[in-house]
């Protein structure tokens, strides 16, 4: 008797689970899934967290998308790519295979985006990169777009700054050699700096380190005897902060320049006084609004999180609202139509500037230059392409 009862109970349970799953499937028809593909743990966790903040803010302001006169609720499917290229490919696969998202937002970190790019392309799921600046992310991939400028431009901006503002004639490069972003940006800086100085030997040395390294004393000791005018050290925020801290401990007083990945609170928290004076290119400044949406973003961000937005949160916001705009213009969830709608974006007013895509899926945007002064990122100037 007991056995029969238990079988009945199991069957009832199965029925309940099955029934519920069916009910959910029905509801799913009114939902649009945005896959969030970000590093939430590991070396790049702070970058991913910033962008997720931007995306969540946008969702709280614009929770729905309208197609054919009908409102669809937007559901965020958040995956952690763990700051690791292998995990990034797994996370990307999960988003397209089991979560079946309609569009992907992310990632912070070009290498992570590049690891999952072919997966999104093969599955025909459109993806909007947020702050992945390496040109290879969108190249040969019709489904990958991005809302940030790219490294050839960023490298030129920083080389110009080094040459004209710092009046540097020699430089040393410190690269995070396992990071595609860092290697790419260092190369564009090198090319541009050599052209500006007219000296093929103006880069005195290229020194390498790995993501996750903590001790850079051996590399930096070599720089000390080279006596460059400037050090260009694009890389992850914590490693870069430790590089600068250890350089100052060794008595190296040369100015440090870097890229967009530095503009994260952790860079200053870890580097403290050592990173004072460090100069970096960045995407956006709260005090230099570009579009009407910029002001909305800054005001709403402060209301929701009680602090000023920093770093790349604005790009998470822009990626989200661009995705809504594209889906509404496509008027359908057909991935090809969404992709074509994104590609056809003209003068879309995001919070961090107007977006019009070129043939590769990259927007032309201006960069701002910031410097760490008094423990804050202070706006210096805007550079237009």
């Amino acid at each position, binding site marked *: 008797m007991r056995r029969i009862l238990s079988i009945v109970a199991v069957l009832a349970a199965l029925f309940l689970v099955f029934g519920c799953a069916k009910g959910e499937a029905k509801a799913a028809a009114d939902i649009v899934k945005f896959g969030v593909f970000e590093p*939430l*743990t590991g070396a790049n966790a702070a970058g991913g967290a910033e962008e997720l903040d931007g995306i969540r803010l946008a969702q709280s302001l614009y929770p729905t998308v309208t197609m054919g006169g009908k409102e669809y609720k937007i559901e965020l499917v958040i995956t952690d790519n763990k700051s690791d290229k292998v995990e990034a490919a797994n996370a990307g696969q999960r988003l397209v295979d089991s979560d079946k998202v309609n569009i992907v937002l992310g990632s912070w970190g070009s290498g992570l985006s590049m690891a999952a790019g072919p997966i999104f392309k093969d599955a025909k799921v459109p993806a909007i990169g947020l702050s992945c600046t390496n040109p290879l992310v969108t190249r040969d991939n019709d489904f990958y777009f991005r809302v940030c400028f790219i490294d050839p431009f960023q490298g030129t901006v920083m080389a110009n700054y080094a040459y004209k503002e710092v009046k540097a004639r020699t430089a040393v490069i410190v690269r995070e050699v396992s990071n595609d972003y860092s290697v790419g940006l260092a190369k564009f800086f090198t090319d541009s700096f050599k052209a500006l100085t007219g000296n093929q030997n103006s880069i005195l040395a290229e020194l390498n380190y*790995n993501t996750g390294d*903590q*001790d850079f004393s051996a*590399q930096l000791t070599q720089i000390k*005897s080279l006596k460059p005018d400037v050090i260009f050290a694009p890389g992850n925020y*914590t490693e870069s902060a430790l590089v600068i801290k250890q350089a100052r401990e*060794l008595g190296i007083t040369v100015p440090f320049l870097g890229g967009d990945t530095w503009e994260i609170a*952790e860079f200053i928290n870890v580097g403290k006084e050592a990173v004072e004076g460090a100069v970096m290119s960045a995407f956006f400044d709260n005090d230099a609004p570009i579009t009407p949406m910029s002001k909305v973003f800054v005001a709403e961000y402060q209301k929701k999180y009680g602090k000023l937005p920093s770093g790349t949160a604005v790009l998470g916001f822009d990626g989200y609202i661009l995705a809504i705009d594209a889906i509404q213009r496509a008027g359908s969830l057909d991935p090809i139509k969404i992709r074509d709608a994104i590609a056809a974006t003209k003068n879309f007013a995001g919070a961090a500037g107007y977006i019009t895509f070129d043939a590769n899926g990259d927007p032309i945007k201006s960069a701002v230059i910031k410097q760490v002064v008094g423990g804050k990122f202070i706006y210096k100037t805007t550079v237009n392409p």
Partner: protein
Amino acid sequence: MDLPTFFQQLVNALSLGSLYALIAIGYTMVYGILRLINFAHGDVFMLGAYFAFYAITALLMPWWIGFIVALSLTALFGIALERVAYRPLRDSPRLSVMISAIGASFLIENLGIVIFGGRPKSFPSIPLFDTVVRFGPVSMLSVSLFIPVITIGSLIALTLIVNHTKTGLAMRAVSTDVDAARLMAVDVNKIVAFTFGVGSLLAGLGGIMWTMKYPQLNPLMGIMPGLKCFIAAVIGGIGNIGGAVLGGFLLGIIEILIVAFLPALTGYRDAFAFVLLIVVLLVKPTGLLGKSQTVKV
């Protein structure tokens, strides 16, 4: 390489090596007594750093009280870990305990991500340890002067405890034969707990020193130092406390030398450490100072 550069690199190597040595001591001691490779050692190291961080920033303790509290908590955690994850498996094959250690390691890391968050934290600056000291052209952080002293101090203290105290005698007895030690009225559980407490305390001490030198904390920060110190312990002869110190220094010196003399190969710095591990295991599996043991069948 000119002379100041050479001396600076030497200082860099010794300060990195002494840090490796400090963490390797605890690793090797636990192995020496219990024949257990405690893969969670690196994660206990991480916890030590976080405990100190929270004691100082959240509970606003002066740094030295914060350190004492953090070290006590780390030691207690080590004892609890042994009670929960290793003691129930003491009579099981060694492989089961090792798998349990790997599981404990993953559990602590992921709990760390959930509790402490994935974003890195920065360790507060303590002036005594965070001052730049210069000797002519050579400069270093003051914490780098303390670390070798603490390492050598721990080495001497542990050697004295193991060789010249009643507890040490019991530890050696447990190491030789657990059952025989129990028959000789040695409280095995107490001795094992004590060993784990001391081993974890040393891991915590290493964690605190590490974060003062490299002031950023994240829940996965213990993985690489844990592996490096495992390598250091194996090079020196796992189970041998003096060997761990020797191995730690050697590993630090080799890592700095690779970057100093072969800058093009910097990206393979970690790979060199693991190649070294393989070479040692192939050529001299007992390590530099380890004794070869005959296995009783």
